[in-house]
Structure formats: structure tokens, C-alpha cells
């Protein structure tokens, strides 16, 4: 079967056993409560929650964390009274987005106000990239309302310049991703927009056809709204942007975007774009070069699930799960719909959710954050899903529609996924209404950790305690002809004659963004034969004989340098 392709060289590696993820949010000082209106949602605005980004905000070589927040309540008389399990703070100015600086000892310090990033609003997602190529990480935040572009000043502070740069918009913005789609050396910005929501006229629970779900008054679904056009901002390289969605071929149909990522699915060296739309067809924009895209998700098999079933698509992840050097796609969906695993078959995609072991186990959960990650460092892509319902109002009558749901972990076993949630430690037994999920090695011990935003609750910082029993390699890149972050670079690592490829991207999962440094689990192999990087500029470089369990930095055209060893 195709699903088994590329598995002949699979490494036999030490299998992680014992507790795998431990929840550390309080100990690490990141237990800032997220707010998104009422648990018993009355508006669709309260359902989407928010995301987070792991990135190096201060350039000191470790991962900091930005967490987006919403509001305690919708400020409109049509949406009172509220019901909260936990009383909101009296001082609502304490509810804001949070920038947490990694202090290097497993803890974080809140520098939101000092940095100038403590925005209060209906925050949705975030993504980081050095958009002006000046050597420090900038940040884009989506909102219901004007978005935010934080330009790093280089001294730990940011200037908010969205309006000045004309990338603020005023839609219900959700997903965002940076990539150099026109290959001119700087990253451009895609912003996905959700539904056309007018708080003064939107259907209320109990009203009409859209205010009832399974006989229960509830917030209206996305089908009750029109979609909004997405935005594609082309970076002009001088701090200004041009909104180019029309000329680029986007928005032939209006979508209801919740997830998006840039990827080179066809291996032709440019960045294509996938947009997950809620309750309608998803879009696959194939980059034709010259700054234009063609939407062909339907024909290529990624618009819907098998049977043409439309999904409440939310989160997206791309990665080569079966080792055939073709990036595959994972999309999270609503309850009763399964997460969809699209296998890249070089020219189209096949929905292999059920044969690959994902389908049956995800029929019930309502999935949001989607991660391909090698949690056990055995060299293949495992799967992490962040789950939780949109409302607390259903589970009284429908126990299977629980508001708080466990997240899920699937171990990749030769291209087939086995759910290991029950055995993955106490961190995976937490049942909250999860939303965004971001991955990164925040404690620098050589294995990938996960941060999860939980709606109307404290987050989950899941520290990986077992993955680094195998060997690993971390690659950090810096572009010179390519954009400085190296976004769009593809890195192929060969160890013991087994190869794996990763593509560096900014923005994926659900409203979130992962570590900008690529991690390669190596299993028992401790000496890398070859690392090949194909830059977004088209340049290709190869390096040989690298030691494992170390961070390596590659600067385009200038060679490779060894960084610190991975601490066990």
C-alpha cells in the first residue's frame, strides 16, 4: 500500500517508555489565564479562542513565548448575562496578550508591558518572522478588528506599526503566515479572515434555524455567516506592503479561514499556500511563479475529506510522515468528522485518515491545534492534536460532546499512527477546551515540548521528558540572499542511510507558530552523514560528517558553525 512507501529504511530506535509529557505551566510561570467570553458560547466570536508562538524574541538563543488573549466578555448588551466558572479579574486591563521571556532555567518572565506588546482585545493568532531582515524577530497578531504588526526595535521593545504599514485590516482575522512567495528575498504575509460578523445583528442562541444545535440553544455556526476575503500582503522591502490578493489570484471564492500554512507541496522551489476554511471547501493555492497562484484544492483532493465531506477545518500541519520526501498534510476538523490526513502522491493527495490510524480515534474529539512533531526523536513525524469543544452548553445532554477534552498524541509506527495518549504522561490526561498549540524545545534538553492555549483556562506547557533518549540534531539557519529567517528552506538530513526532510515555515497549527529552529530525531544514529539545505533563493548547500546531539547554525553561502550541545 502507498501508505507504507518509504518505510524500508525506518530506524529501529529506543522506544520511549514511562511518562512522556509533564504539565509545567505554573512552575514555568506561564500560567496566564486565557479568556474568550462565555463558556456557554452565545457568539461565534467566543468559540475560536487563540494561539501562541514560540520564537526567540530577545535573540539570546532560547525560545520565548507569545500568548494571544481574548476578552472576558463581548461588550454588547445582546450578549449578557455571562456565566463563568471562574470570576474574571476586576481590573480588565490585566487581560492582555503576553510576551514571556525565557530566563534559561525552565522559567519565563512576563515582559508584556516592558516590550510594548500587551494588547487587550479579541486576539486570535500570532506568527513571528524577521520581515525587515534586520536581524531581530518581529511579530504579527490577528484580531477580531485591526491586526497588529510589532516591529522589533532590537532592544527588547517593539513598535506597533500595522496601520502605518497598512496591514491592519479590520476583519475577523484568524490565521497568519509569513513566507517569501515571490522569491524576492523578504517574507510576505498571508492573513486568513473568518466570517462577516456583526455583533448587533448576528443570530443569538435559540433564534431561528441557526441558533439551535441538536435541540439546544447555542451560538450560531459558521454556516450562518458569509465569509470574508483573505489578504496577501507583499513585502516591498522598505517597511511598506501592498495588498496583492486579487492580482495573486486569491479569493476567487470567499472562504472562512481558520488555518493556513505556506509549503512547497510540489517541490518546484516556490511557496504554495493551503487555507483551511470552516464548513466549506479548503483552498490549495499552487504558486505558478511570478507572484500568482491557482486554486486547485478540489482536483488535487485536499478541499474535502473522502466522499466530498466538508469539514469544520481549523488547524493545519505539513510534514513528510512516511519518509517518501513528499510533504503530507494534516487538517483538524469538528466533532464527528475526523482529523484528515492527506498523503502526498506526487500530483494529487489521497485521504488516508482511516488506513493510517488517525480516522477512527479522532471521530469524536473536536480538534484544533495540529502538529507533526518527532516527540520520541526516532526520526519520523508523530502527531499531536489539541482538542476541546466550542461550548460548555452541549455536554449536559450530549455527554460525548464534552467541553474539556484530552489532547491526543499519536506515535508514528512505520507510516501508521498508534494513539499513545493514555501512556504519554499526566500532561496528556488534562481535559480542557484547547485551541492553539505550538511546539519547540523551550528547555533546550534536546526534545520537543508543546505549549497549548486553553480557552477560558490556564494553558498547558507540556515538557517532554522522554524524547531525548535518542539522538537528535537541531538546525538554525540564516539567509543572506534568501529572507533572513530562512523561511521556505528545505533541509534534508541523512543518518545511517535514512533521510528525512523538513521545511522551515512561519505559521501553521491553529492560530500558532512553532520554533524557528528545525529539529531532527536521529534514533540510535550519532553521526550525521549529510545535511543538505535548499534555500528559498534556490541555492543548495551540503555539509557532511556532523556530530549529533548538537545545534548547528547554517548561514547562506557562508558555511556552518557548531552551536551548543543538547543538554540531556
Amino acid at each position, binding site marked *: 500500500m502507498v501508505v507504507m512507501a518509504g518505510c524500508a529504511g525506518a530506524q529501529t530506535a529506543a522506544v520511549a517508555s514511562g511518562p512522556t509529557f509533564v504539565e509545567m505551566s505554573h512552575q514555568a510561570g506561564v500560567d496566564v489565564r486565557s479568556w474568550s467570553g462565555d463558556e456557554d458560547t452565545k457568539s461565534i466570536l467566543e468559540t475560536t479562542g487563540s494561539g501562541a508562538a514560540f520564537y526567540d524574541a530577545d535573540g539570546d538563543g532560547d525560545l520565548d513565548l507569545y500568548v494571544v488573549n481574548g476578552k472576558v466578555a463581548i461588550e454588547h448588551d445582546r450578549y449578557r448575562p455571562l456565566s463563568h466558572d471562574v470570576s474574571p479579574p476586576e481590573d480588565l486591563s490585566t487581560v492582555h496578550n503576553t510576551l514571556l521571556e525565557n530566563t534559561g532555567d525552565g522559567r519565563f518572565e512576563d515582559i508584556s508591558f516592558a516590550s510594548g506588546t500587551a494588547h487587550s482585545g479579541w486576539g486570535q493568532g500570532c506568527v513571528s518572522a524577521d520581515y525587515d531582515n534586520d536581524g531581530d524577530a518581529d511579530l504579527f497578531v490577528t484580531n477580531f478588528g485591526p491586526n497588529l504588526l510589532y516591529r522589533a526595535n532590537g532592544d527588547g521593545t517593539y513598535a506597533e506599526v500595522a496601520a502605518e504599514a497598512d496591514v491592519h485590516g479590520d476583519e475577523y482575522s484568524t490565521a497568519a503566515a509569513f513566507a517569501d512567495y515571490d522569491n524576492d528575498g523578504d517574507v510576505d504575509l498571508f492573513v486568513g479572515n473568518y466570517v462577516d460578523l456583526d455583533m448587533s445583528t448576528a443570530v443569538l442562541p435559540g433564534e431561528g434555524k441557526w441558533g439551535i444545535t441538536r435541540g439546544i440553544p447555542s451560538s450560531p455556526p459558521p454556516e450562518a455567516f458569509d465569509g470574508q476575503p483573505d489578504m496577501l500582503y507583499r513585502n516591498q522591502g522598505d517597511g511598506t506592503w501592498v495588498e496583492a490578493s486579487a492580482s495573486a489570484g486569491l479569493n476567487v471564492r470567499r472562504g472562512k479561514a481558520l488555518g493556513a500554512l505556506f509549503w512547497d507541496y510540489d517541490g518546484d522551489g516556490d511557496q504554495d499556500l493551503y487555507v483551511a476554511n470552516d464548513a466549506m471547501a479548503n483552498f490549495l493555492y499552487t504558486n505558478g511563479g511570478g507572484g500568482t497562484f491557482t486554486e486547485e484544492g478540489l482536483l488535487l483532493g485536499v478541499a474535502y475529506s473522502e466522499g466530498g*465531506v466538508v469539514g469544520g477545518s481549523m488547524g493545519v500541519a505539513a510534514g513528510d510522515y512516511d519518509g517518501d520526501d513528499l510533504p503530507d498534510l494534516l487538517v483538524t476538523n469538528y466533532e464527528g468528522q475526523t482529523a484528515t490526513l492527506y498523503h502526498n502522491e506526487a500530483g494529487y493527495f489521497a485521504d488516508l485518515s482511516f488506513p493510517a490510524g488517525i480516522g477512527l480515534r479522532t471521530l469524536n474529539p473536536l480538534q484544533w491545534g495540529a502538529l507533526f512533531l518527532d516527540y520520541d526523536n526516532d526520526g519520523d513525524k508523530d502527531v499531536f492534536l489539541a482538542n476541546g469543544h466550542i461550548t460548555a452548553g452541549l455536554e449536559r445532554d450530549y455527554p460525548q460532546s464534552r467541553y474539556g477534552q484530552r489532547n491526543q498524541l499519536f506515535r508514528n509506527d512505520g507510516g501508521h499512527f498508534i494513539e499513545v495518549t493514555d501512556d504519554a504522561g499526566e500532561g496528556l490526561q488534562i481535559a480542557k477546551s484547547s485551541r492553539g498549540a505550538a511546539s519547540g524545545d523551550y528547555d533546550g534538553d534536546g526534545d520537543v515540548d508543546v505549549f497549548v492555549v486553553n480557552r477560558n483556562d490556564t494553558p498547558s506547557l507540556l515538557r517532554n521528558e522522554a524524547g531525548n533518549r535518542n539522538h537528535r540534531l537541531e538546525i538554525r539557519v540564516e539567509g543572506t540572499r534568501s529572507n533572513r529567517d530562512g523561511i521556505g528552506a528545505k533541509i534534508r538530513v541523512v543518518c545511517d542511510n535514512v533521510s528525512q526532510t523538513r521545511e522551515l515555515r512561519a505559521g501553521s497549527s491553529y492560530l500558532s507558530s512553532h520554533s524557528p529552529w528545525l529539529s531532527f530525531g536521529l534514533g540510535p544514529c550519532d553521526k550525521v552523514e549529510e545535511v543538505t539545505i535548499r534555500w528559498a533563493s534556490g541555492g543548495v548547500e551540503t555539509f557532511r560528517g556532523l556530530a549529533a546531539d548538537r545545534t548547528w547554525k547554517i548561514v547562506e553561502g557562508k558555511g556552518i558553525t557548531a552551536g551548543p550541545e543538547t543538554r540531556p
Partner: protein
Amino acid sequence: MTAVVRPCAMSLMAAFLLGSCQPDASEVAAAVDAGVVLAEEGKFSEAKEVFLRAISLDSTYAEAHLRLGYMHEVADALAAAKREYAIAARLDSSMAAAHYNYGLMLAKEGDHQNAADAFNRAIDILAVDPDSALAPLPHYCLGLIHAARGEYDDALQAYNRALEFSSDLPYVHNELGKVYKQRDQLEESEAAYKRALELKADLLGAHYDLMTVYMRMRRPDLAAKHKRLFEQFRDQQGG
């Protein structure tokens, strides 16, 4: 609705329209008959009230619970529907429709094992009534459960058993197409989807899946044809 049971929903009206008991002169039976007429006219709220009244007259009248379950299901009150189907099955263990519909509700909740048990009970009951319009449906639903579990041999067996009762069920041919596709039997898959479309030309899922089969067979011309048909019918159906 779950991917497993969505195609099963087409059986709701089929099972509902089956007369499951002989005419009875009692007031309860008359009430149920009246409720059935109202439901057939699309007056579901009124029918629901009539069935509730019948139950108030005789809470052990299984068919009243079954019919009330249908009305709850029409109103998307699935928890209530499940309760009524369970009561009907308990009151009359020989009522195949009650077991079948209870199985549907369990499957929608993701309780596939108990759903399969309920479908098997319906199959056992219907073994003595092979001409019943309900007869193929629990086999079909069992096939969906087997397919979701990757038990493709069992799925094929269940679907073919359903077709033995009635060969003209487009949804069953459609699901056969999926199983053959997962087993890389592309020609068999193509044939099954084409048969489904012969029986129901606007079956969206068949057009979509046939499009993907043709992409896999490297027949982009035929894939494009079924893409157009999928889009045409999708737009007509308000998708």
C-alpha cells in the same frame, strides 16, 4: 453526524414509513396512526404531540416510543431520540426498527461497538422477514463500522450482504467503492462508484471519490469530468 453513520441517515424515513404493527382498534393505536399521518404530511411538531399523548395513555406501547424517537431525530434532539429508541427496543425486543435506530444513535456518539451489537440484533430479527425494506440497512451500517476500523474484508462482506437484499442501493455501491480504493483495487473501485452513479446520478460523494480514483489512475480527463459534476451538484444542493 459522524462520517460512519451519515450515509445511514437515509434510512430514517425508510424505516419510519414501515408499518410495524397491524391496525388496532384501541385508542392508543389510533393515536399513533394519526401521528403517522401527520408526520407523513411534514407536520412533525403536531405528530410529536400526538405520540406523547399516546404514551401518556399507554407508556408500554413500543411503537409510540419508536415514532416519538423519529420526531426527536427530525428535530435534531438526538439524546431524546436515543432514549425513545432504547425504550421501544426494551418494550418490544422483536422490533427491528427500534434496534436499528438505536444503533444509529450509538454510532453517532462514537460508540461503535454497542452500535454494532444493536445492528446485529436487528439483523437477527429481520432474518425471518427478508422482504422487509429495512433488511439491508443494518448490514450496510455494520459495513461502515468495519470499514472505519480498517476491517475491509468484513466491510466487503457486510456491503455485499446488504446488496443481496436489494441490489439497487446507491449508498452501498458507493461505500464498496471506498473499500476497494483503500485496498488499491482501483478498477473495482471505479466500477462500484459508476454503479452508484447509475442509480443516483447526483450522489456527490461518488463523484468526488471517482475524481480521486481517476487522479490515482492518472486519468486527469475523467477526473476533471467528475470534478465538474461534483461542483455542479454541490451548487445545486446548496453546498
